[in-house]
């Protein structure tokens, strides 16, 4: 091969690089290691994370059982090692699966169209906001304080340079639901998007219909966010929303320390051309058979460049496929039963604790515990990771944790949480009084 290339050595193929631009020493990296050593290295790292803990964390990332079929399917090289399906004739597998994904997301959310996935829930929020702003021609965004705090941070990062002022509206202290009066007060005719989450960050099912009325009255679009996709198995879909954006991590995607996950954006028919990201459509091949292909690419960066609806290129195809397999395995009956189990577990746990809010919740809720740190420390001794201390995001809830139970939470562990938390909270209260 070198002869054909007219080179004496592979290095010679780099001789045209300017001398000053070249690296004249070996990289300061250790030599390669074997497969066995690599497994050993990562096994050690996993051990350093701690072994044998059970967890009651939720807050946007949930512990759900992953059916075996999920990895069986996504490990197939035909799915794992293919690229974006630009060449439809040899990508019908991926394209068909995405078409099914888009369909199932519509069925779940009550929307007309869904795209082929976004990076994750958090980045889907600014994309949905920008979509609403484009569609209404109004730049201002109102976002509920009960939207996941990190999602709101991402929104602010994107919004800052878009000429897209973002303002927040509050929640009702007793119920933990949207403060609709605050929303009404802050609404104006320059607001293009009202963004809320349901179940909200506190786990509470929120008032989509009422918020939609307020938004629509002033010509804004309503964006509804979800972080817990399993809730859609039992909750009324947010059909009053104009755009639904969410996170599918609950659908057989491991927590994996924060990613990769898959987000979605779904919307009404009239907003199709404002959608970011890939879309798969149905058509026929030259023999008249049903076929699928990427479509409406004129929205996208590789055609429109600086005029595109988004700079997004990649979607999360393999992760979306995990969710697709998950939805197929659980299906119509299973997703309902799964949601019912989550509901039962979280309400059992809530019976052992002191919920902070009176709003109806799905599988997580805010519990008043006195000192979250003391409680969590005591739980760790029992090999239990407790809830998320909320002071970091909501100073007014510094005595609370956000705690979650799923179908994987065992009764025995929930009893232990109750035993550890309640006395600790009681002691704390006594200390404060003293």
């Amino acid at each position, binding site marked *: 091969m070198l002869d054909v290339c007219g080179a004496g050595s592979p290095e010679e193929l780099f001789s045209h690089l300017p001398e000053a631009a070249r690296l004249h020493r070996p990289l300061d990296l250790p030599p390669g290691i074997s497969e066995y050593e690599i497994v050993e290295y990562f096994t050690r790292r996993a051990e350093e994370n701690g072994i044998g803990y059970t967890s009651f964390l939720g807050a946007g990332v949930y512990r759900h059982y992953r059916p075996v079929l999920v990895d069986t399917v996504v490990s*197939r090289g035909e799915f794992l090692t293919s690229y974006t399906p630009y060449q439809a004739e040899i990508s019908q597998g991926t394209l068909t699966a995405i078409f099914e994904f888009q369909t199932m997301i519509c069925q779940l959310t009550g929307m007309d169209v869904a795209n082929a996935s976004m990076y994750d829930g958090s980045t889907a929020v600014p994309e949905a906001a920008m979509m609403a702003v484009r569609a209404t021609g109004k730049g201002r965004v109102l976002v509920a304080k009960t939207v996941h705090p990190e999602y709101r941070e991402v929104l602010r990062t994107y919004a800052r340079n878009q000429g897209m002022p973002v303002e927040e509206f509050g929640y009702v202290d007793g119920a933990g639901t949207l403060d609709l009066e605050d929303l009404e007060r802050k609404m104006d005719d320059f607001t293009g998007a009202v963004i809320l989450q349901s179940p909200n960050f506190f786990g509470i099912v929120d008032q989509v219909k009422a918020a939609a009325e307020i938004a629509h009255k002033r010509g804004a679009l309503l964006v509804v966010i979800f972080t817990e996709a399993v809730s859609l198995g039992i909750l009324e879909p947010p059909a009053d929303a104009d755009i639904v954006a969410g996170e599918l991590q609950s659908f057989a995607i491991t927590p994996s320390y924060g990613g990769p996950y898959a987000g979605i954006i779904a919307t009404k028919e009239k907003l199709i051309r404002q959608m970011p990201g890939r879309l798969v459509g149905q058509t026929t091949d030259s023999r008249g058979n049903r076929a699928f292909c990427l479509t409406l690419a004129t929205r996208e960066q590789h055609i429109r460049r600086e005029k595109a609806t988004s700079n997004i290129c990649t979607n999360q195809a393999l992760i979306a496929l995990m969710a697709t397999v998950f939805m197929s395995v659980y299906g119509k009956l299973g997703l309902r039963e799964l949601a019912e189990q989550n509901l039962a577990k979280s309400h059992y746990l809530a019976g052992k604790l002191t919920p902070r809010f009176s709003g109806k919740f799905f599988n997580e809720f805010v519990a008043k515990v006195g000192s979250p740190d003391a409680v969590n420390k005591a739980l760790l001794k029992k090999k239990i990771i407790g809830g998320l201390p909320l002071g970091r995001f909501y100073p007014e809830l510094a005595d609370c944790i956000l705690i979650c139970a799923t179908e994987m939470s065992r009764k025995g562990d929930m009893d232990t949480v109750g035993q550890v938390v309640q006395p600790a909270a009681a002691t704390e209260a006594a200390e404060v009084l003293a």
Partner: protein
Amino acid sequence: MINKVRQHLSQNEALLFERSSPGKKAYQLPELDVPAVDAAEALGAENVRAEIEGFPEVSEVEAIRHFTRLSTWNYAIDHGMYPLGSCTMKYNPRINELVARIDGLAWAHPYQPEALSQGCMQVMERLELMLAEITGMDAVTLQPAAGAHGELTGILLIRALLEKRGNPRKKILIPDSAHGTNPATAAIAGYAVENIKSSSTGGVDLAALEGLVNEDVAALMVTNPNTLGVFEENIIRVAEILHRKGAMLYMDGANMNALVGMARPGDFGVDVLHLNLHKTFSTPHGGGGPGAGPVCVKKVLEPFLPTPRLKRSGKKLTFDYKRKNSIGRVKAFYGNFGVLVRALAYILAHGGPGLRNATMDAVLNAVYIRKQLEPYFDLPYPSPNMHEVVFSDDRQAKLGVRTGEIAKRLIDYGFHPYTVSFPLIVHGALMIEPTETEGKLELDQFIEAMISIAKEVETDPELVKNAPYGTRTSKVDEVTAARKPVLRWKPA
């Protein structure tokens, strides 16, 4: 003559919704160990949905057959060479998949206490350090989820620094050979885009650049080697011109596979670059994601990196959230950790010398293809190429056959097509990137196929124009798909 493939039967398969029957299921849940609750009571009757209309109802064997049948309709790297230029479709080692699924890593919750996350944090720290060494940069953020997301992060960093200096400026310069994500990103970051014409050799035109760089220019976004696979020979001058006027040099790292171990962007004047871990560091493309787009910067940009930042204090790693100059978050949590694990496994397996060898093989393979195909296809930019080579269809177009048609014919020969019609500066581009993981046998088969098609164009252009013939799905009507969008299944 087509030697590499012959036809076999593939199974037909309906959509899941069409093969569903009421009551079928593929799941089992354990018995509830707590009392069931009444949904209407717990959630409010008005909040409880009716059944999910149209949702699948299939058995386990039906589900596995469904997805297995679908999978056989895909071409993949595991089948053969995937020479998509700019996409770096190299082999994806399976060890990476295994280690990413180790329980203690895969089930780590982003909010579990830092004391119980030290293993994950060490993985991230090690990868940050290694990427800094590979690129010659000072600091790395692993937060961005993909290449385009990394671009956005990088441009926001530049904006933040310039704002701090008193003027964020107005424009980003982008060569006409750039990826579409570059201008789309600049627009989202609030900048106007000014295109800069490539020189006659396909590189950045120095005179044009000097004329354009002024106090309004925030940065130039350059891909190096550029999308022709050609190293910017004047890159150091380019950096000087920008820096003299207080502008920054952004590098799109899509083509780092040509440089690892041989040259470092940090050494030739780059201020910010993003990497595509799913390209250079072989995390699988998965039909279009997930990826990861770490951003590497020079020290001056470090204060602006997204929160949180990984910080070491003695033996312990922590996250630093108190960074007043930070651009903020670009994504929830810390990045696509599972992708980071795979990339680190790839770097550890190769080691320093292995990575350098991979780079040399990637370039050798691309130059080999160029030399073998040069007699048959026009090469509009004859500068020495690196990891990819871009031909034009000029010669074939005269006989009425375009690059997209040659690409479809390549499918009949058992290959995935090259990248079609990109970069835009080449008329009818055929952009070929073999990567280092192809051996000579596969390369020679590809070369034979391309030569054979070039001859078919001369003898029987219609044969090429109506390809592919051997696929279970023939030419797809994309025009109707866009004109009358059907984006979801509905019951007949």
